[in-house]
Protein backbone atom coordinates (compact mmCIF):
# COMPACT_ATOMS: atom_id res chain seq x y z
CA UNK A 1 0.00 0.00 0.00
CA UNK A 2 1.35 3.42 -0.96
CA UNK A 3 0.13 6.15 1.33
CA UNK A 4 0.57 9.91 1.13
CA UNK A 5 -0.21 12.54 3.70
CA UNK A 6 -0.24 16.25 2.86
CA UNK A 7 0.58 18.67 5.65
CA UNK A 8 1.02 22.36 6.23
CA UNK A 9 2.82 24.34 8.85
CA UNK A 10 0.68 27.17 10.19
CA UNK A 11 1.09 30.03 12.63
CA UNK A 12 -0.02 29.32 16.16
CA UNK A 13 -3.45 30.89 16.52
CA UNK A 14 -2.59 32.25 19.95
CA UNK A 15 -0.17 34.64 18.29
CA UNK A 16 -0.68 38.33 17.88
CA UNK A 17 -1.09 38.93 14.16
CA UNK A 18 0.17 42.08 12.54
CA UNK A 19 -0.25 43.14 8.97
CA UNK A 20 1.90 45.81 7.41
CA UNK A 21 -0.14 48.23 5.37
CA UNK A 22 -0.76 47.09 1.83
CA UNK A 23 0.32 43.53 2.61
CA UNK A 24 -1.81 40.50 1.85
CA UNK A 25 -0.27 38.25 4.47
CA UNK A 26 0.63 38.81 8.10
CA UNK A 27 4.12 39.46 9.35
CA UNK A 28 5.68 36.12 10.27
CA UNK A 29 8.66 37.32 12.29
CA UNK A 30 8.55 36.26 15.94
CA UNK A 31 5.52 34.04 15.40
CA UNK A 32 5.48 30.45 16.57
CA UNK A 33 4.60 27.85 13.96
CA UNK A 34 3.17 24.39 14.32
CA UNK A 35 1.81 21.52 12.33
CA UNK A 36 -1.78 22.37 11.31
CA UNK A 37 -4.02 20.72 13.91
CA UNK A 38 -6.21 18.99 11.31
CA UNK A 39 -3.10 17.54 9.69
CA UNK A 40 -2.08 15.89 12.94
CA UNK A 41 -5.18 13.75 12.61
CA UNK A 42 -4.31 13.05 8.98
CA UNK A 43 -0.78 11.96 9.89
CA UNK A 44 -2.10 9.76 12.69
CA UNK A 45 -4.66 8.15 10.38
CA UNK A 46 -1.97 7.51 7.77
CA UNK A 47 0.42 6.01 10.31
CA UNK A 48 -2.31 3.78 11.71
CA UNK A 49 -3.16 2.57 8.22
CA UNK A 50 0.48 1.85 7.54
CA UNK A 51 0.69 -0.07 10.79
CA UNK A 52 -2.36 -2.06 9.73
CA UNK A 53 -1.47 -2.85 6.14
CA UNK A 54 2.26 -2.33 5.91
CA UNK A 55 3.52 -0.34 2.96
CA UNK A 56 5.12 2.95 2.49
CA UNK A 57 4.11 6.35 3.83
CA UNK A 58 5.28 9.61 2.30
CA UNK A 59 4.60 13.03 3.75
CA UNK A 60 4.60 16.13 1.58
CA UNK A 61 4.45 19.81 2.41
CA UNK A 62 4.52 22.94 0.31
CA UNK A 63 6.01 25.85 2.18
CA UNK A 64 9.07 27.89 3.13
CA UNK A 65 12.17 26.47 4.82
CA UNK A 66 10.53 26.50 8.25
CA UNK A 67 7.97 23.92 7.07
CA UNK A 68 10.70 21.34 7.35
CA UNK A 69 9.96 21.24 11.10
CA UNK A 70 6.43 20.06 10.40
CA UNK A 71 7.76 17.39 8.07
CA UNK A 72 10.19 16.28 10.76
CA UNK A 73 7.29 15.86 13.14
CA UNK A 74 5.39 13.71 10.67
CA UNK A 75 8.50 11.59 10.14
CA UNK A 76 8.87 11.22 13.89
CA UNK A 77 5.21 10.18 14.13
CA UNK A 78 5.87 7.39 11.64
CA UNK A 79 6.09 8.55 8.02
CA UNK A 80 8.86 6.89 6.02
CA UNK A 81 10.02 9.77 3.89
CA UNK A 82 9.33 13.41 3.29
CA UNK A 83 9.07 15.65 0.28
CA UNK A 84 9.44 19.37 0.87
CA UNK A 85 8.34 21.58 -1.97
CA UNK A 86 10.10 24.82 -1.16
CA UNK A 87 7.79 27.77 -1.67
CA UNK A 88 8.18 31.16 -0.06
CA UNK A 89 4.98 32.67 -1.42
CA UNK A 90 1.63 32.28 0.32
CA UNK A 91 -0.17 30.11 -2.20
CA UNK A 92 -3.93 29.92 -2.56
CA UNK A 93 -5.59 26.51 -2.33
CA UNK A 94 -5.72 25.88 -6.04
CA UNK A 95 -2.03 26.67 -6.47
CA UNK A 96 -1.05 24.42 -3.57
CA UNK A 97 -3.13 21.54 -4.88
CA UNK A 98 -1.63 21.96 -8.33
CA UNK A 99 1.93 21.99 -6.98
CA UNK A 100 1.29 18.81 -4.99
CA UNK A 101 -0.41 17.21 -7.98
CA UNK A 102 2.64 17.83 -10.16
CA UNK A 103 4.85 16.15 -7.58
CA UNK A 104 2.75 13.07 -7.02
CA UNK A 105 0.70 12.41 -10.15
CA UNK A 106 3.00 9.65 -11.34
CA UNK A 107 3.36 7.98 -7.95
CA UNK A 108 0.16 5.95 -7.86
CA UNK A 109 -0.77 6.42 -4.22
CA UNK A 110 -3.51 4.13 -2.96
CA UNK A 111 -4.60 6.44 -0.21
CA UNK A 112 -4.03 10.11 0.39
CA UNK A 113 -4.81 11.87 3.65
CA UNK A 114 -5.05 15.62 4.17
CA UNK A 115 -6.43 17.80 6.92
CA UNK A 116 -9.98 18.98 6.44
CA UNK A 117 -8.73 22.55 6.32
CA UNK A 118 -5.82 24.61 7.54
CA UNK A 119 -6.40 26.55 10.70
CA UNK A 120 -4.98 29.76 9.24
CA UNK A 121 -7.18 30.08 6.16
CA UNK A 122 -9.91 27.54 6.72
CA UNK A 123 -10.71 27.15 3.03
CA UNK A 124 -11.04 23.38 3.06
CA UNK A 125 -10.16 23.11 -0.62
CA UNK A 126 -6.71 21.61 -1.10
CA UNK A 127 -7.59 17.98 -0.41
CA UNK A 128 -10.70 17.94 -2.56
CA UNK A 129 -9.03 19.81 -5.41
CA UNK A 130 -6.17 17.34 -5.36
CA UNK A 131 -8.60 14.43 -5.48
CA UNK A 132 -10.30 15.99 -8.51
CA UNK A 133 -6.99 16.61 -10.25
CA UNK A 134 -6.02 12.98 -9.71
CA UNK A 135 -9.53 11.90 -10.75
CA UNK A 136 -9.87 9.61 -7.76
CA UNK A 137 -12.61 9.23 -5.15
CA UNK A 138 -12.44 11.72 -2.36
CA UNK A 139 -14.42 12.28 0.78
CA UNK A 140 -14.20 15.24 3.15
CA UNK A 141 -14.52 15.88 6.85
CA UNK A 142 -14.01 12.32 7.97
CA UNK A 143 -14.49 11.45 11.64
CA UNK A 144 -14.23 7.65 11.41
CA UNK A 145 -12.07 5.59 9.10
CA UNK A 146 -11.71 1.86 8.44
CA UNK A 147 -9.85 -0.02 5.73
CA UNK A 148 -10.70 -3.53 4.61
CA UNK A 149 -9.78 -3.52 0.92
CA UNK A 150 -12.17 -0.65 0.40
CA UNK A 151 -12.49 2.19 2.84
CA UNK A 152 -15.44 2.81 5.07
CA UNK A 153 -15.75 6.27 6.54
CA UNK A 154 -18.11 8.47 8.47
CA UNK A 155 -18.44 12.02 7.26
CA UNK A 156 -19.51 14.65 9.71
CA UNK A 157 -22.71 16.46 8.78
CA UNK A 158 -24.45 19.16 10.76
CA UNK A 159 -26.22 18.79 14.07
CA UNK A 160 -24.34 15.71 15.26
CA UNK A 161 -25.41 13.61 12.28
CA UNK A 162 -22.93 11.55 10.27
CA UNK A 163 -23.06 9.84 6.90
CA UNK A 164 -21.56 6.39 6.54
CA UNK A 165 -19.95 5.75 3.15
CA UNK A 166 -17.93 3.09 1.46
CA UNK A 167 -15.56 3.69 -1.43
CA UNK A 168 -12.89 2.02 -3.44
CA UNK A 169 -9.24 2.99 -3.50
CA UNK A 170 -7.38 4.88 -4.77
CA UNK A 171 -9.02 7.53 -2.65
CA UNK A 172 -8.38 10.75 -0.82
CA UNK A 173 -9.68 11.50 2.65
CA UNK A 174 -9.73 14.87 4.42
CA UNK A 175 -9.58 14.49 8.17
CA UNK A 176 -11.66 16.34 10.74
CA UNK A 177 -10.67 16.95 14.37
CA UNK A 178 -11.51 14.04 16.63
CA UNK A 179 -10.92 11.37 13.97
CA UNK A 180 -8.35 9.73 16.22
CA UNK A 181 -5.95 10.53 19.01
CA UNK A 182 -2.77 11.88 17.38
CA UNK A 183 0.26 10.42 19.10
CA UNK A 184 3.13 12.39 20.52
CA UNK A 185 6.23 11.62 18.51
CA UNK A 186 8.46 9.68 20.90
CA UNK A 187 11.90 11.09 21.58
CA UNK A 188 13.77 8.11 20.07
CA UNK A 189 11.64 8.46 16.96
CA UNK A 190 12.49 12.15 16.75
CA UNK A 191 16.16 11.21 16.69
CA UNK A 192 15.53 8.48 14.12
CA UNK A 193 13.62 10.87 11.91
CA UNK A 194 16.92 12.56 11.21
CA UNK A 195 17.99 9.54 9.22
CA UNK A 196 14.83 9.21 7.16
CA UNK A 197 15.01 10.37 3.56
CA UNK A 198 13.87 13.92 2.96
CA UNK A 199 14.00 15.55 -0.42
CA UNK A 200 13.72 19.21 -1.21
CA UNK A 201 12.31 20.22 -4.55
CA UNK A 202 11.01 23.33 -6.18
CA UNK A 203 8.07 23.52 -8.51
CA UNK A 204 6.65 26.58 -10.20
CA UNK A 205 3.17 27.43 -8.94
CA UNK A 206 0.41 28.29 -11.43
CA UNK A 207 -1.10 31.77 -11.34
CA UNK A 208 -3.49 32.40 -8.48
CA UNK A 209 -7.18 32.48 -9.27
CA UNK A 210 -7.83 34.77 -6.33
CA UNK A 211 -6.85 38.33 -5.77
CA UNK A 212 -6.54 39.53 -2.20
CA UNK A 213 -7.78 43.09 -2.03
CA UNK A 214 -7.15 43.80 1.63
CA UNK A 215 -6.12 42.11 4.87
CA UNK A 216 -6.45 43.47 8.38
CA UNK A 217 -7.94 43.09 11.82
CA UNK A 218 -11.72 42.73 11.99
CA UNK A 219 -13.58 45.98 12.48
CA UNK A 220 -14.08 46.56 16.18
CA UNK A 221 -17.73 45.68 16.45
CA UNK A 222 -17.81 47.69 19.63
CA UNK A 223 -20.73 45.51 20.59
CA UNK A 224 -19.13 43.92 23.60
CA UNK A 225 -18.64 45.98 26.69
CA UNK A 226 -15.45 44.94 28.46
CA UNK A 227 -15.76 44.24 32.15
CA UNK A 228 -12.30 44.71 33.58
CA UNK A 229 -10.92 45.63 36.95
CA UNK A 230 -10.66 43.68 40.15
CA UNK A 231 -12.41 40.40 40.66
CA UNK A 232 -15.06 41.45 43.15
CA UNK A 233 -16.06 44.48 41.11
CA UNK A 234 -16.36 42.25 38.04
CA UNK A 235 -18.51 39.78 39.94
CA UNK A 236 -20.90 42.44 41.24
CA UNK A 237 -21.17 43.97 37.80
CA UNK A 238 -22.17 40.62 36.28
CA UNK A 239 -24.60 39.91 39.11
CA UNK A 240 -26.18 43.30 38.46
CA UNK A 241 -26.50 42.60 34.73
CA UNK A 242 -28.11 39.23 35.41
CA UNK A 243 -30.55 40.80 37.86
CA UNK A 244 -31.38 43.58 35.43
CA UNK A 245 -32.32 40.96 32.82
CA UNK A 246 -34.19 38.98 35.48
CA UNK A 247 -31.94 36.03 34.94
CA UNK A 248 -30.77 35.70 38.52
Amino acid sequence: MKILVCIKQVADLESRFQVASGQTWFNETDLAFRLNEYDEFAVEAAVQLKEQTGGDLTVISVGPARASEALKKALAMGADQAVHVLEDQQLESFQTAQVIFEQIKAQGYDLIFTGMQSSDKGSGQVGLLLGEMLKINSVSCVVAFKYDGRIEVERELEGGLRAKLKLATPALVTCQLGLNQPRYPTLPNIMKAKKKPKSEVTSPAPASRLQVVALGPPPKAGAAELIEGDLLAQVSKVVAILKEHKLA
Partner: protein
Amino acid sequence: MKALLIGEVLRGKLAPSLYEMLGFASQAGLESVVLVCAPISTNPQFTGKLYQGDGGEYDPLSHKAMALEVIAKENPDLVVLMHSSYGWDLAPRLAMELGWGQISEAIAFDSGTFNQVLVGGKLRRSVKTVSGQAVVTLQSGAFSEAAPAGSPALESISALKGAIEWLGYVEKPAQDLDLTKAQKIVSAGRGIGKADNLGMIQELAQVLGAELGASRPVVDSGWVEHSHQVGSTGATVTPELYMACGISGAVQHLAGMKKSELIIAINKDKDAPIGEVAHYVVVADLLQFVPALTKALKA
Protein backbone atom coordinates in the same frame (compact mmCIF):
# COMPACT_ATOMS: atom_id res chain seq x y z
CA MET B 1 -25.13 38.89 -13.54
CA LYS B 2 -26.50 35.54 -12.68
CA ALA B 3 -25.94 33.17 -9.73
CA LEU B 4 -26.63 29.49 -9.48
CA LEU B 5 -27.63 28.68 -5.92
CA ILE B 6 -27.28 25.04 -4.98
CA GLY B 7 -29.73 24.09 -2.26
CA GLU B 8 -29.17 21.33 0.17
CA VAL B 9 -31.38 18.34 0.84
CA LEU B 10 -31.27 16.35 4.01
CA ARG B 11 -33.61 13.38 4.31
CA GLY B 12 -36.02 14.62 1.71
CA LYS B 13 -36.22 18.14 3.11
CA LEU B 14 -34.80 21.29 1.62
CA ALA B 15 -32.52 23.08 4.06
CA PRO B 16 -33.84 26.56 4.96
CA SER B 17 -30.38 27.97 4.32
CA LEU B 18 -31.47 28.34 0.68
CA TYR B 19 -33.15 31.57 1.81
CA GLU B 20 -29.78 32.85 3.04
CA MET B 21 -28.37 32.24 -0.43
CA LEU B 22 -31.37 33.98 -1.97
CA GLY B 23 -30.83 36.81 0.50
CA PHE B 24 -27.23 37.11 -0.60
CA ALA B 25 -28.21 37.08 -4.28
CA SER B 26 -30.72 39.84 -3.83
CA GLN B 27 -28.26 41.90 -1.74
CA ALA B 28 -25.70 41.49 -4.53
CA GLY B 29 -28.31 42.26 -7.19
CA LEU B 30 -27.97 38.92 -8.93
CA GLU B 31 -30.51 36.97 -10.86
CA SER B 32 -30.94 33.57 -9.16
CA VAL B 33 -31.32 30.09 -10.55
CA VAL B 34 -31.66 27.31 -7.99
CA LEU B 35 -30.58 23.72 -8.25
CA VAL B 36 -31.70 21.06 -5.83
CA CYS B 37 -30.14 17.69 -6.61
CA ALA B 38 -32.54 15.39 -4.76
CA PRO B 39 -36.34 15.26 -4.52
CA ILE B 40 -37.92 17.48 -1.89
CA SER B 41 -41.33 17.46 -0.28
CA THR B 42 -42.17 21.17 -0.68
CA ASN B 43 -40.77 23.55 -3.24
CA PRO B 44 -39.08 26.74 -2.09
CA GLN B 45 -40.75 30.07 -2.73
CA PHE B 46 -38.86 32.48 -4.91
CA THR B 47 -39.07 33.99 -8.35
CA GLY B 48 -36.81 32.36 -10.91
CA LYS B 49 -36.00 28.93 -12.16
CA LEU B 50 -35.72 25.77 -10.05
CA TYR B 51 -33.84 22.78 -11.41
CA GLN B 52 -34.99 19.66 -9.68
CA GLY B 53 -32.64 16.67 -9.81
CA ASP B 54 -33.62 13.11 -9.04
CA GLY B 55 -30.38 12.18 -7.30
CA GLY B 56 -30.14 10.38 -4.02
CA GLU B 57 -28.19 11.14 -0.90
CA TYR B 58 -25.09 13.21 -1.43
CA ASP B 59 -22.77 11.65 -3.90
CA PRO B 60 -20.08 13.97 -5.23
CA LEU B 61 -19.88 12.53 -8.73
CA SER B 62 -23.57 12.53 -9.32
CA HIS B 63 -24.30 15.93 -7.79
CA LYS B 64 -21.33 17.48 -9.54
CA ALA B 65 -22.60 16.22 -12.89
CA MET B 66 -26.05 17.71 -12.32
CA ALA B 67 -24.58 21.04 -11.32
CA LEU B 68 -22.33 21.12 -14.39
CA GLU B 69 -25.30 20.37 -16.61
CA VAL B 70 -27.21 23.31 -15.18
CA ILE B 71 -24.16 25.56 -15.36
CA ALA B 72 -23.75 24.70 -19.03
CA LYS B 73 -27.36 25.67 -19.68
CA GLU B 74 -27.48 28.80 -17.57
CA ASN B 75 -23.98 30.27 -17.80
CA PRO B 76 -23.97 31.80 -14.31
CA ASP B 77 -21.19 34.11 -13.12
CA LEU B 78 -21.32 32.79 -9.60
CA VAL B 79 -22.05 29.37 -8.17
CA VAL B 80 -23.16 29.70 -4.58
CA LEU B 81 -23.37 27.07 -1.85
CA MET B 82 -23.48 27.16 1.90
CA HIS B 83 -20.21 26.49 3.73
CA SER B 84 -21.66 23.29 5.14
CA SER B 85 -20.69 19.65 4.93
CA TYR B 86 -22.54 19.59 1.62
CA GLY B 87 -21.32 22.88 0.24
CA TRP B 88 -17.66 22.77 1.16
CA ASP B 89 -17.43 19.32 -0.34
CA LEU B 90 -19.12 20.09 -3.64
CA ALA B 91 -17.67 23.57 -4.18
CA PRO B 92 -14.01 22.69 -4.91
CA ARG B 93 -15.11 19.90 -7.23
CA LEU B 94 -17.09 22.38 -9.28
CA ALA B 95 -14.35 25.01 -9.15
CA MET B 96 -11.92 22.42 -10.47
CA GLU B 97 -14.12 21.41 -13.40
CA LEU B 98 -14.95 24.99 -14.27
CA GLY B 99 -11.42 26.28 -13.84
CA TRP B 100 -12.76 29.03 -11.57
CA GLY B 101 -11.44 30.40 -8.32
CA GLN B 102 -13.25 29.47 -5.14
CA ILE B 103 -13.95 31.73 -2.20
CA SER B 104 -14.63 29.75 0.95
CA GLU B 105 -16.87 30.75 3.80
CA ALA B 106 -17.68 34.30 2.80
CA ILE B 107 -19.12 36.39 5.60
CA ALA B 108 -19.95 39.52 3.62
CA PHE B 109 -20.12 40.87 0.11
CA ASP B 110 -19.27 44.42 -0.71
CA SER B 111 -18.85 46.04 -4.11
CA GLY B 112 -17.58 42.97 -5.87
CA THR B 113 -15.37 41.54 -3.13
CA PHE B 114 -16.07 38.92 -0.52
CA ASN B 115 -14.93 39.03 3.09
CA GLN B 116 -13.38 36.04 4.78
CA VAL B 117 -12.14 35.32 8.26
CA LEU B 118 -8.53 34.19 8.81
CA VAL B 119 -6.49 32.79 11.71
CA GLY B 120 -9.43 31.97 13.92
CA GLY B 121 -11.12 35.35 13.58
CA LYS B 122 -8.13 37.53 14.36
CA LEU B 123 -7.82 38.77 10.78
CA ARG B 124 -10.18 39.42 7.97
CA ARG B 125 -9.50 39.75 4.29
CA SER B 126 -11.42 40.77 1.23
CA VAL B 127 -10.91 38.81 -1.97
CA LYS B 128 -12.24 38.41 -5.43
CA THR B 129 -11.44 36.05 -8.23
CA VAL B 130 -9.19 37.16 -11.03
CA SER B 131 -11.66 36.12 -13.73
CA GLY B 132 -14.73 37.50 -11.99
CA GLN B 133 -16.42 34.11 -12.10
CA ALA B 134 -16.40 32.31 -8.77
CA VAL B 135 -17.61 29.41 -6.75
CA VAL B 136 -18.52 30.80 -3.35
CA THR B 137 -19.53 29.16 -0.10
CA LEU B 138 -21.38 31.31 2.43
CA GLN B 139 -20.94 31.14 6.16
CA SER B 140 -24.19 30.10 7.72
CA GLY B 141 -25.98 32.98 9.38
CA ALA B 142 -23.82 35.63 7.72
CA PHE B 143 -26.39 36.84 5.20
CA SER B 144 -29.94 37.73 6.06
CA GLU B 145 -32.56 35.46 4.65
CA ALA B 146 -34.80 36.46 1.78
CA ALA B 147 -38.48 36.29 2.59
CA PRO B 148 -40.15 33.32 0.89
CA ALA B 149 -42.23 34.69 -1.98
CA GLY B 150 -43.16 33.62 -5.46
CA SER B 151 -43.12 30.27 -7.14
CA PRO B 152 -40.29 29.14 -9.38
CA ALA B 153 -40.52 27.67 -12.84
CA LEU B 154 -39.59 24.00 -12.62
CA GLU B 155 -37.29 22.02 -14.83
CA SER B 156 -36.10 18.51 -14.00
CA ILE B 157 -32.74 16.95 -14.62
CA SER B 158 -31.61 13.42 -14.06
CA ALA B 159 -28.71 12.10 -12.09
CA LEU B 160 -26.05 9.61 -13.01
CA LYS B 161 -24.75 7.01 -10.66
CA GLY B 162 -21.86 7.88 -8.44
CA ALA B 163 -18.90 5.87 -7.21
CA ILE B 164 -19.53 6.09 -3.51
CA GLU B 165 -21.72 3.61 -1.74
CA TRP B 166 -24.13 5.17 0.71
CA LEU B 167 -24.47 3.09 3.85
CA GLY B 168 -26.79 5.35 5.79
CA TYR B 169 -26.91 8.00 8.48
CA VAL B 170 -25.33 7.49 11.85
CA GLU B 171 -27.46 9.23 14.43
CA LYS B 172 -26.08 10.78 17.50
CA PRO B 173 -27.14 8.55 20.37
CA ALA B 174 -30.51 9.58 21.75
CA GLN B 175 -30.04 11.91 24.67
CA ASP B 176 -32.37 13.50 27.14
CA LEU B 177 -30.63 16.80 26.88
CA ASP B 178 -31.98 19.13 24.24
CA LEU B 179 -29.97 22.31 24.43
CA THR B 180 -32.13 24.01 21.85
CA LYS B 181 -34.92 24.16 24.42
CA ALA B 182 -32.77 25.57 27.20
CA GLN B 183 -33.56 29.09 28.47
CA LYS B 184 -30.10 29.55 29.90
CA ILE B 185 -26.82 27.94 28.92
CA VAL B 186 -23.44 28.14 30.60
CA SER B 187 -20.80 26.80 28.23
CA ALA B 188 -17.29 25.58 28.84
CA GLY B 189 -14.48 25.96 26.30
CA ARG B 190 -10.92 24.76 26.05
CA GLY B 191 -10.01 27.63 28.38
CA ILE B 192 -11.15 25.56 31.36
CA GLY B 193 -7.86 23.72 30.92
CA LYS B 194 -8.79 20.30 32.24
CA ALA B 195 -11.76 18.05 32.90
CA ASP B 196 -11.55 18.67 36.64
CA ASN B 197 -12.50 22.29 36.16
CA LEU B 198 -15.78 21.34 34.56
CA GLY B 199 -17.17 21.03 38.07
CA MET B 200 -17.04 24.77 38.64
CA ILE B 201 -18.84 25.47 35.37
CA GLN B 202 -21.51 22.95 36.26
CA GLU B 203 -21.91 24.52 39.63
CA LEU B 204 -22.42 27.95 38.11
CA ALA B 205 -24.94 26.47 35.67
CA GLN B 206 -26.77 24.88 38.54
CA VAL B 207 -26.97 28.09 40.55
CA LEU B 208 -28.37 29.88 37.50
CA GLY B 209 -30.72 27.04 36.61
CA ALA B 210 -28.92 26.70 33.29
CA GLU B 211 -27.88 23.78 31.12
CA LEU B 212 -24.26 22.98 30.49
CA GLY B 213 -23.01 23.71 26.97
CA ALA B 214 -19.55 23.16 25.52
CA SER B 215 -17.31 24.01 22.61
CA ARG B 216 -16.08 21.25 20.41
CA PRO B 217 -12.63 20.68 21.94
CA VAL B 218 -14.28 20.02 25.29
CA VAL B 219 -16.43 17.37 23.62
CA ASP B 220 -13.55 15.93 21.57
CA SER B 221 -11.49 15.55 24.72
CA GLY B 222 -14.27 13.38 26.09
CA TRP B 223 -14.98 15.72 29.00
CA VAL B 224 -18.68 15.96 28.14
CA GLU B 225 -21.12 14.21 25.81
CA HIS B 226 -21.70 15.49 22.30
CA SER B 227 -25.25 16.49 23.24
CA HIS B 228 -23.71 19.46 25.06
CA GLN B 229 -21.90 20.79 22.01
CA VAL B 230 -22.91 24.17 20.67
CA GLY B 231 -21.99 25.21 17.16
CA SER B 232 -22.24 24.25 13.56
CA THR B 233 -21.71 20.57 14.29
CA GLY B 234 -23.57 20.70 17.57
CA ALA B 235 -26.72 22.43 18.67
CA THR B 236 -27.86 25.83 17.43
CA VAL B 237 -29.25 27.62 20.43
CA THR B 238 -31.05 30.86 21.17
CA PRO B 239 -31.39 31.01 24.95
CA GLU B 240 -32.12 34.11 27.00
CA LEU B 241 -28.67 33.82 28.54
CA TYR B 242 -25.54 32.34 27.05
CA MET B 243 -22.39 32.43 29.14
CA ALA B 244 -19.23 31.41 27.29
CA CYS B 245 -16.45 30.46 29.68
CA GLY B 246 -13.03 30.14 28.05
CA ILE B 247 -14.39 30.03 24.51
CA SER B 248 -12.48 31.96 21.88
CA GLY B 249 -15.38 32.44 19.48
CA ALA B 250 -14.41 30.49 16.38
CA VAL B 251 -16.92 30.96 13.56
CA GLN B 252 -18.19 27.40 13.98
CA HIS B 253 -19.03 28.06 17.59
CA LEU B 254 -20.56 31.47 16.90
CA ALA B 255 -22.78 29.88 14.28
CA GLY B 256 -24.51 27.97 17.06
CA MET B 257 -25.04 30.72 19.63
CA LYS B 258 -24.79 34.20 18.22
CA LYS B 259 -28.54 34.71 18.22
CA SER B 260 -28.77 34.25 21.98
CA GLU B 261 -30.48 37.16 23.69
CA LEU B 262 -27.79 38.00 26.23
CA ILE B 263 -24.25 36.78 25.72
CA ILE B 264 -21.67 37.13 28.47
CA ALA B 265 -18.18 35.84 27.76
CA ILE B 266 -15.49 35.19 30.31
CA ASN B 267 -12.10 35.27 28.68
CA LYS B 268 -8.66 36.32 29.72
CA ASP B 269 -7.97 37.63 26.24
CA LYS B 270 -9.90 40.84 25.81
CA ASP B 271 -9.40 40.61 22.05
CA ALA B 272 -10.87 37.11 21.75
CA PRO B 273 -13.22 37.05 18.75
CA ILE B 274 -16.14 36.05 20.98
CA GLY B 275 -16.30 39.79 21.67
CA GLU B 276 -17.81 40.27 18.22
CA VAL B 277 -21.08 38.72 19.30
CA ALA B 278 -20.97 38.99 23.08
CA HIS B 279 -22.72 41.81 24.87
CA TYR B 280 -20.23 41.68 27.70
CA VAL B 281 -16.73 40.26 27.95
CA VAL B 282 -15.47 39.75 31.47
CA VAL B 283 -11.70 39.99 31.10
CA ALA B 284 -10.59 37.55 33.78
CA ASP B 285 -9.17 34.17 34.57
CA LEU B 286 -12.25 32.02 34.63
CA LEU B 287 -10.72 29.77 37.28
CA GLN B 288 -10.95 32.77 39.62
CA PHE B 289 -14.02 34.45 38.27
CA VAL B 290 -16.42 31.54 37.89
CA PRO B 291 -16.23 30.31 41.50
CA ALA B 292 -16.44 33.90 42.74
CA LEU B 293 -19.57 34.52 40.67
CA THR B 294 -21.13 31.27 41.85
CA LYS B 295 -20.46 32.26 45.41
CA ALA B 296 -21.97 35.70 44.92
CA LEU B 297 -25.07 34.25 43.27
CA LYS B 298 -25.53 31.77 46.09
CA ALA B 299 -25.33 34.50 48.71
